[in-house]
């Protein structure tokens, strides 16, 4: 079962002084997951200031600056994992550094064979 773990937090915290430590701990987590065959991919994201939104309306492409919705907690990164069940996904979310102050949202993938990562 594949789950996308979406990492949300305030940018001041996520991109603050603990970023280096956070990246080190995350690298260790990725190593552990990979050793267990649970890892597909993961990455932190550049801050929301770098975001671009695209909408196609009536055949016309509208490109705008920024995210679709302004929220206090921004999407800061993700993990894509392959585990047996939700409890295993929760156990991984538990080890993501941002979970200590932000939120990790776990979403099961709707597994459509043609769309799965290969």
């Amino acid at each position: 079962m594949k789950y996308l773990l979406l990492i949300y937090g305030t940018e001041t915290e996520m991109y603050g002084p603990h970023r280096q430590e956070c990246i080190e701990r995350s690298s260790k987590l990725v190593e552990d997951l990979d050793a267990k065959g649970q890892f597909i991919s993961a990455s932190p994201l550049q801050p929301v200031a770098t975001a671009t939104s695209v909408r196609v309306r009536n055949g016309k492409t509208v490109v705008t600056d920024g995210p679709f919705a302004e929220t206090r907690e921004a999407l800061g990164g993700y993990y894509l994992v392959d585990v047996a069940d939700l409890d295993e996904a929760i156990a991984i979310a538990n080890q993501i550094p941002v979970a200590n102050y932000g939120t990790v949202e776990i979403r099961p993938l709707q597994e459509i064979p043609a769309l799965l990562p290969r």
Partner: protein
Amino acid sequence: MAAPVSDEVAAVYRAESRRVLATLIRLLGDFDVAEEALHEAFASAVERWPVDGVPENPRAWLVSAGRFKAIDGMRRRARFDASMGELAERLEADRRADEAKRELAAEGVEDDRLRLIFTCCHPALPPEARLALTLREVCGLTTEEIASAFLSPPPTIAQRIVRAKAKIKSAKIPFKVPSRADLPDRLDGVLHVIYLVFTEGYSASAGDSVTRADLSAEAIRLGRLVLELLPEPEVAGLLALMLLQESRRAARTSAAGDLVLLDEQDRSLWNREQIREGRALVERALSSGRFGPYTLQAAIAAVHAEAPDAASTDWGQIVALYGLLLRAAPSPIIELNRAVAVAMRDGPAAGLELVDDLMTRGELSDYHLAHSARADLLRRLGKTAEARAAYDRALSLARQEPERRFLQRRLNELG
């Protein structure tokens, strides 16, 4: 001879259907498929048992029949849905493997029920769905019964259960007992649900029977199972609480089915064996120093159990324990209980003052027991007109027949 056998099927259904369901969920990996299989298994028991006789181990027979029917149904549907065929073959392979191991599919059913309760109480489900799902799947209550317990319309409950099952399936909430590391956290939610099952059995929320012994027995059994799995003080405390309350069951209702309050109960009817076990569990939990609200409630029940009658109860100790309980788990209902204990220790006027303060805060204004407690204190103070008004209010809120009869009787006694 058909009638006695069908009676037997009905009896087996009552006794075993939830255990069979739990095992079928494990074997088939899907709540809805397992429920359908359960019904087909019983349908085939109704057909076969009068002819072949009741099997030696009805539970194993039902699990095996349900499993077989489910696989058979999937194979038939495989003509329209290829994935159904793959699933059927995978389940059939499991079935043959179990047979080869000569392992009865019905073995380990206690574990299956525990798995089921942990799944139904999973924190990824909304709290109100955990309760509804546990009552439906673990205890076999109907949607209507759950709706009445929750004071919600049946379609709301039905939708809650459907959504919870859909989430279990699509988010793959596992059908297993949590890992040792997760167990303490998951346990709190499970204990809460078990106690609600118990109280539903001890005091059915509507209808003409005060108690549903089977549900309470079910909750006690679940409590024992969890205690065996995780000997934590609060599990012992919860089991003690249920046993001590259960010990009074025979004394709680009169022969006519009327409610008898604690101070008027014939204490010779109390179940000494349950009291002995309950007290031992309370002591065990208290001596750990890591107890919580269930243990404190059990300690209060144990003080009652020790007293030969209401008058010689150690009310001072009960007031003190309610004080501790209020600190551990603040709630207006506990404040109400403490006020009633204060009335027993210091007289009705002291209790009434506390109850009136509590009522002006409004949280208990629709709680029939608050009005009846207040009415009782007013009655004891000789304030007949006010007592009558409070009993009237309680009567308008009470939904259980025996409670309504009790309140009506008190009203009549006021003259």
